[in-house]
């Protein structure tokens, strides 16, 4: 009886430690291990947000999405860099925020068409994605 009790206590302790460790885990720096919820062209995504932001938020806010578009700019930020996906005739686009550990700035060339996976956080002047990774 005592033996079972000891084993049970140890199992409970392990369970508690696992829950504890999982609860306090570090946030991911990118969405690499997350499942893509939908794929869309940068121009279409921008169009949806600029026409009806509320509806677009319903569809895309806090979702992991893959966006394909043409790179118009790469800009350093305080903690990493932003890649702008914007069609030549547009004044807005999709801004993709990268952690320097998730991607290499050198992998992005102006005018190149790429597919980027990230978490959609909403719309300011552009649609914004964070925790991005570049898909090959």
């Amino acid at each position, binding site marked *: 009886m005592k033996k079972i009790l000891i084993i049970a206590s140890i199992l409970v302790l392990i369970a508690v430690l696992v829950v504890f460790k999982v609860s*306090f885990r570090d*946030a991911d720096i990118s969405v690499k291990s997350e499942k893509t919820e939908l794929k869309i062209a940068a121009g279409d995504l921008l169009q949806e947000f600029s026409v009806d932001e509320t509806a677009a938020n319903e569809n895309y806010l806090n979702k992991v999405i893959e966006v394909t578009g043409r790179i118009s700019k790469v800009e350093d930020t305080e903690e990493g860099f932003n890649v702008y996906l914007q069609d030549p005739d547009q004044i807005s686009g999709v801004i993709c925020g990268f952690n320097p550990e998730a991607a290499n700035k050198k992998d992005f060339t102006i005018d190149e068409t790429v597919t980027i996976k990230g978490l959609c956080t909403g719309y*300011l*002047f*552009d649609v914004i994605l964070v925790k991005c990774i570049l898909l090959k």
Partner: protein
Amino acid sequence: MKTIVTSLVLVILTLNIQAQKFISKSGFIRFYSYTPIEEIEANNNQAASILDASTGDVQVSLLIRSFSFKKELMQEHFNENYMESNVYPKSSFKGKITDISKVNFKKDGQYQVEVEGEITIHGVTKPLKTPVTIEISKGVPTAKAKFKVLTADFNIAIPDLVKEKIAKEIEITLDIPYQKV
């Protein structure tokens, strides 16, 4: 006649520089809470801002979901419980640099000015007045500021369970590099 034309052109050119609007889409904003029990830091690298060099009008907006935290759980609590980002996805500031004329946009250097306006967090708008440093480098400004806000002022409810871990005053740091529009 030639002198009048030259003077006119010079005046127009000078006015043009002063009438310049500047934009940023990669502004850095940090929310920081310190208590003896826990330090919490949230960082945003996609804040947007427009600065009008002639009027001093300035607007800053950011998405709450764009903030990153070191701990996953903190990010969840921030979005779902404190900021309710599904209801209030943005935070913004709208105001004016009251002494913008102090800044010489053609001369590199640091200028201490003051901004006055309204800040909106969690759907609540409150007046805000704070010093700002405008750094001019090659005719282009970067705005830096640091100020504190009270969570209570913005209806942000901190549950009793974590009251010891979250400061009543949150320190907000801004570092916004602009570009010509």
